[in-house]
């Protein structure tokens, strides 16, 4: 046996009432580093010992709120920022959909925190306690009750403390010693630990080997339902359909998700990122007539029927002397005339300066129709009779 020092004084009791009474006296004597050990929880012991309220609820509350905040943040970032995707017409970030996850994360964070903190705040796991050196103390898990006052307590005095405990009618009082030298783990614990860790690595090594080794024997199928799923893979054959193909061709008249606006020329007026100077759709009389109609409806109010920037809005603004009004551009300016078709299309779609974008009001093909009609307006300003086809010259003379 090595050298020892006093750990504390331990008093033993035979029933609940006397250990409760003893606890009250120790509490009233002002001791702080002491504890009661019983075979089962005793209602009212917290009060008898004067146990101060634990800080645990506050930390758990904080952890719960952190779980709430983090889960909302995560859902906001994944749904609304990183990968926005419309699901049944809901906003990208919509609180009702986030509440189930937020609720569960709150509980998860609070629960796990409470579980771990109960261990941490109680100083667990603890492999050794000096009280277990006492032979009598072993009955603490059976039918005996103990009060132990530690020598670390500022009020501890070998004589006075013993006297205090003796006054509580204990079944026995004992001094508990602890070794001076720090308690070291027994060697067998280290061996068991080392062996366990070594064994735990084996599955990882085997898995690594299996993933990197070649073998002629067919692989094992542990979970058949997952390895052989009743589904058709891309490019596979299937007897289900007459043409033998598993992949179905696109149904006529439909557009696959994400493929609606693949035609950059048609939708954006661009080819390879540059403004296109050609029409993506066939040009004919019908399109021209449509363009005239749409132009007169949407454009003429500002740009005027002739395209001179003298629409009714512009006239009114001039006559009421609206100082801040920016007059509409005349479509016969050289600058505009030189613009490629695609750029005019882009202006109609997106707007420019104070002109708003008309994408919401004018469908794609109508925009191109307006581009066509506008080009015609521009051309007719500088046109001569030679530009008119022979058979129509008579008509306009």
């Amino acid at each position, binding site marked *: 046996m090595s050298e020892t020092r006093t750990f504390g004084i331990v008093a033993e009791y035979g029933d609940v009432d006397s250990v409760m009474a003893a606890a009250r006296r120790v509490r009233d004597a002002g001791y702080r580093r002491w504890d009661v050990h019983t075979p089962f929880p005793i*209602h*009212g*012991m*917290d*009060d008898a010992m004067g146990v101060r309220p634990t800080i645990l*609820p506050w930390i758990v*509350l904080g952890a719960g709120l952190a779980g709430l905040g983090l889960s909302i943040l995560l859902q906001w970032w994944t749904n609304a920022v990183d990968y926005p995707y419309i699901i*049944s*017409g*809901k906003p990208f970030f919509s609180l*009702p*959909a986030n*509440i*189930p996850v937020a609720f569960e994360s709150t509980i998860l964070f609070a629960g796990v925190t409470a579980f771990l903190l109960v261990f941490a705040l109680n100083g667990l796991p603890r492999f050794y306690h000096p009280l277990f050196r006492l032979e009598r103390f072993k009955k603490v898990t059976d039918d005996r009750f103990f009060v132990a006052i530690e020598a670390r307590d500022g009020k501890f005095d070998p004589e006075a403390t013993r006297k205090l405990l003796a006054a509580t009618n204990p079944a026995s009082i004992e001094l508990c010693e602890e070794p001076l030298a720090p308690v070291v783990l027994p060697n067998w614990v280290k061996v068991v630990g080392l062996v366990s860790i070594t064994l735990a690595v084996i599955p990882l090594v085997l898995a690594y080997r299996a993933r990197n080794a070649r073998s002629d024997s067919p692989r094992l199928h542990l979970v058949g339902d997952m390895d052989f799923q009743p589904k058709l893979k891309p490019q596979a054959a299937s007897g289900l359909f007459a043409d033998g193909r598993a992949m179905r061709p696109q149904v006529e008249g439909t557009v696959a998700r994400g493929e609606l606006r693949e035609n950059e020329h048609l939708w954006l007026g661009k080819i390879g990122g540059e403004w296109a100077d050609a029409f993506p759709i066939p040009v004919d009389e019908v399109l021209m007539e449509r363009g005239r109609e749409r132009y007169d409806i949407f454009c003429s109010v500002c740009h005027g029927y002739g395209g001179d920037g003298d629409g009714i809005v512009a006239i009114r603004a001039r006559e009421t002397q609206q100082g801040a009004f920016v007059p509409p551009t005349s479509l016969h300016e050289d600058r505009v005339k030189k613009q490629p078709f695609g750029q005019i299309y882009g202006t109609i779609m997106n707007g420019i300066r104070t002109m708003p974008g008309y994408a919401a009001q004018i469908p794609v093909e109508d925009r191109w129709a307006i581009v066509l009609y506008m080009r015609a307006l521009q051309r007719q300003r500088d046109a001569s009779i030679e530009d008119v086809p022979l058979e129509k010259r008579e008509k306009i003379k």
Partner: protein
Amino acid sequence: MNVGPDTLANLAERPPRLGEKAPALGRRSLVIGALLLVVGLVLGLAGDQGMEHFLHAWLVGATFVLSIALGGLFFVILQHLTAAGWSVILRRQAEMMASMLPWAAVLFAPLVLPTLIGQADLYPWADQDWAAADPIVAKKTGYLNGVFFSIRMALYFVVWIELTRWFVKHSNEQDQDGSAARTVAMRKYAAPGMLVFALTATFFAFDALMSLDPHWFSTIFGVYFFAGCAIAVFSTLILGSLALERGPLQGIVTVEHYHDLGKWLFGMVFFWGYIAFSQYVLIWYADIPEETVWYAHRSHHGWQYVSAILLFGHLLIPFGGLLSRHVKRNRAALGFWAAYMLLQHLIDIFWLVNPNVGGHGAGGAMAFGLIDVAVWAGLIVLSFGVFVLRARSQALLPARDPRLAESLSFQNN
């Protein structure tokens, strides 16, 4: 408290009862309640919407009273089912509440009988022509018709009253003979009793409340109604114990019992929110017109404010308010939250029922006025009077229950 054999013998010999002042209080309540109802009736006859608004107000008040009584039945069965020790001193109060179920049946009679003869002010489907003309309701007329409705309502009340009678009978007789066999028998029948209670309460909610808007349906609606019952009974138990502690139950109800009642109330507040949200989120997510219409009515014409009051006032604010252990162990604070939750529970029923005034959910205009307050207050005060007068005949706790000592000395830690 320290419970010795003397305490138990004393309680068994002279179980606490309501004091001498109780009958006067009960009679006064009857008079005041009746007067308030007359005021409500006059307002109803004078108003534009007439008896329709009056009937809806009556349904709200009657459902409120019924929810406390049903909550009492739930509490009694649950304590037997779980063989709970802590709650024994509270159980008689819950039994008394459940014993109000016959009275609740009286309150519901003026709503059921007109429906039986085809008067459709409350339940539009009672008008057979209207129901046949409506393509959705026409398919439901096999279930929603005056006769079958009345049979079901009668069945619910008979089942509840008989269940209560059986438990209360054994409990009262145990006061005399102290037989532990009764406790065992009550535990045994608590399990099927709970099953019957769950089914009848669910279908009652479907019939009495959900069918006000016969187009709409929600399978969780019964649980929602039950959550309200649970909040009602725990709030009432807290207030009842606080009142009785000033008199006959002094020194018997301790802070530990309030702590547990507070935990229950807190749990049920959140349970209500959980169920209410479960109903909402599925409908919100699916966004199908025939389901969203119910919430659409409650998002317009001023009902959106009532909805907001429920979200914050019925869930978030009391959740924060009841979270702390110190609140649950403080009589004044817990009493405040109990009274507050009863008010919120009343608003909840109002929110379920009154959007159906004038057009059965089709119009959904705000319907709230003096008539509602008069009828609710009248029914509640009147029922309180009936309760007090009936409670005189019983002891205030099961004086010879085998677990009485455990309950008296109950501690949370």
